[in-house]
């Protein structure tokens, strides 16, 4: 239990001491980051200030979870629930490492207990429930905890008549949880259906990357499906498809624009205007109130 207590206190501290809206990216270890778009090397602190948009080519780089929360919520309005929900190891899964060790390392690295956080927020003064996935935590993979948190977020939305916004970023299912992780697809999708039945809006934000079991469940089921520019969004990853069909894939395949053109998205929204756009949609859906 020693490490657990330590981490608990550490997380608690990070919640209290650090005004999260002002200084979100506390744990960014590298001084420099290279832009995957143009190759430009950028000072991490400049990147943080620029919402993880490349200062040269505007490439939308992956955004740490707290920065994302800060981006979308009014100052200090985020009140998290289920914060300390932690995964078990139902399969006693071991590959090159034991699964509990992987989780412990991910907790150490990210200061989060799993790959999603959920809570209440104000978005330009509109009350909503916000779920944000965390790619830095085991590739944003969905296991029991992610499934549970998002399902509860959607259920709270349904019973409290509060719109739900979920920002997806995920490599897919958490393989280490085997069948339990697969079933989270059914669980979260059923919860979306419950929200639909309650006639409460669900805005799904698909960011780079949203793939596999996450793309093939709740993330594709938004009343509004919004993507960030250049995000990879797919069921099967490009490498898997290339191996299957033994062909090179066309440029831009499975990127946001491709999905928009194929009718899978309502719109592509730049990160700088994302919050405004969400607020606008919720405002219109609520008879302008």
């Amino acid at each position: 239990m020693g490490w657990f207590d330590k981490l608990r206190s550490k997380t608690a501290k990070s919640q209290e001491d650090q005004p999260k809206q002002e200084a979100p990216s506390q744990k960014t270890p590298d001084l420099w980051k290279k832009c995957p778009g143009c190759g430009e090397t950028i000072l991490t602190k400049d990147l943080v200030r620029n919402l993880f948009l490349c200062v040269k080519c505007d490439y939308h780089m992956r955004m740490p979870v707290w920065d994302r929360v800060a981006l979308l919520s009014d100052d200090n309005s985020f009140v998290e629930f289920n914060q300390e929900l932690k995964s078990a190891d139902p399969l006693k899964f071991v590959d090159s490492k034991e699964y509990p060790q992987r989780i412990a390392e991910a907790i150490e690295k990210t200061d989060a207990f799993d790959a999603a956080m959920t809570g209440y927020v104000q978005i330009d003064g509109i009350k909503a429930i916000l779920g944000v996935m965390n790619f830095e935590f085991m590739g944003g993979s969905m296991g029991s905890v992610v499934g549970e948190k998002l399902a509860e977020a959607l259920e709270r939305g349904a019973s409290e008549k509060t719109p739900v916004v979920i920002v997806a970023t995920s490599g897919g299912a958490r393989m280490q949880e085997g069948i339990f992780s697969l079933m989270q697809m059914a669980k979260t999708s059923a919860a979306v259906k419950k929200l639909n039945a309650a006639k409460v809006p669900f805005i799904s934000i698909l960011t780079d990357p949203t793939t596999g079991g996450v793309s093939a469940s709740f993330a594709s089921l938004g009343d509004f499906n919004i993507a960030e520019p250049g995000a990879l969004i797919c069921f099967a990853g490009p490498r898997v498809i290339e191996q299957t069909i033994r062909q090179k894939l066309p440029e831009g395949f499975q990127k946001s624009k491709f999905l928009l053109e194929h009718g899978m998205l309502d719109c592509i929204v730049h990160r700088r205007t994302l919050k405004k756009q969400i607020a606008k949609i919720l405002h219109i859906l609520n008879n302008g109130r």
Partner: protein
Amino acid sequence: MALELDFEKPIIEIEKRIEDLKVISDAGHVDLTEEIALLSSKIEPLKKEIYNNLESWQVAKLARHIDRPSTLEYVKHICGDDFVEMHGDRLFGDDPAIVGGIGLIDGRSVMIIGHQKGCDTQTNIYRNFGMPHPEGYRKALRLMRFAEQFNMPVVTFIDTPGAFPGIGAEERGQSEAIAKNLAEMSALRVPIICFITGEGGSGGALALGVGDKVFMFEFSIYSVISAEGCAAILWNDPNKAKEAASALKFKSTDLLKAGIIDEILNEPLGGAHRDHKKAAEEIKKTILKYLPTLIAVSADNLIEERYNRFRRIGKFAGEEEQENG
């Protein structure tokens, strides 16, 4: 000629020796009746020993056996002539990797939907090895809504390596098609009974698997990823598929223990591919056993229980500590 699996070799060797002895015996040179009887008596216990102790990887091979009965074969045995196949998603096309239609089971109308594999190379190419495109899932959804409209229970047969990873599938929204089925099945107002008959390959399998009852054949598998895929990603080595297979715990016994399925259906000795009719009878028996109870439940209660069935699934750290005392 049935495909031989390596662990079946001892059985096949004895069977071959019996055949040889019979030929000699029938030629009238010597009386080998006793030897033949002795060898024959060894087969049953040997089969039992082998099939009761299969590794995950070996079960996967049985689950993928090319001679394993397919959805349309089960339908033939279960409904006889009383089945009408329905085609097309009314949106794009008809996917041969998923079949469905209306049928009668002992005088009760049902909607049957399942993945469809081929039985040889040619039919497998036509069926895309049972790997559906979005139009397959959308056909399945159309048929489920049809079932709801006419108040018919739905029976699904699950047997796929997974949804097809291809350009067309991505262009037409493979993710959305699967996701939509998961959501819609969770609230379909008629009973849904699911059978995992062979390979339960990930989201492409689950897209027909959100039911009130879920059954699995003894030598079928149900997994979040194939052993090969898992080995390639987590072990960085596709040759570690055997290790990945046992780590993923995808055998029917594992899934029963995990509370994901309701019951394991026994297969004919040596696997469903050795006796299609008997395997089909097992399914029919199970449908007839559970259908009356499910039909008696009101639609509201039915979907509430179905929702809770999937809502409950998940394992968390605190619970584990409690379990361990």
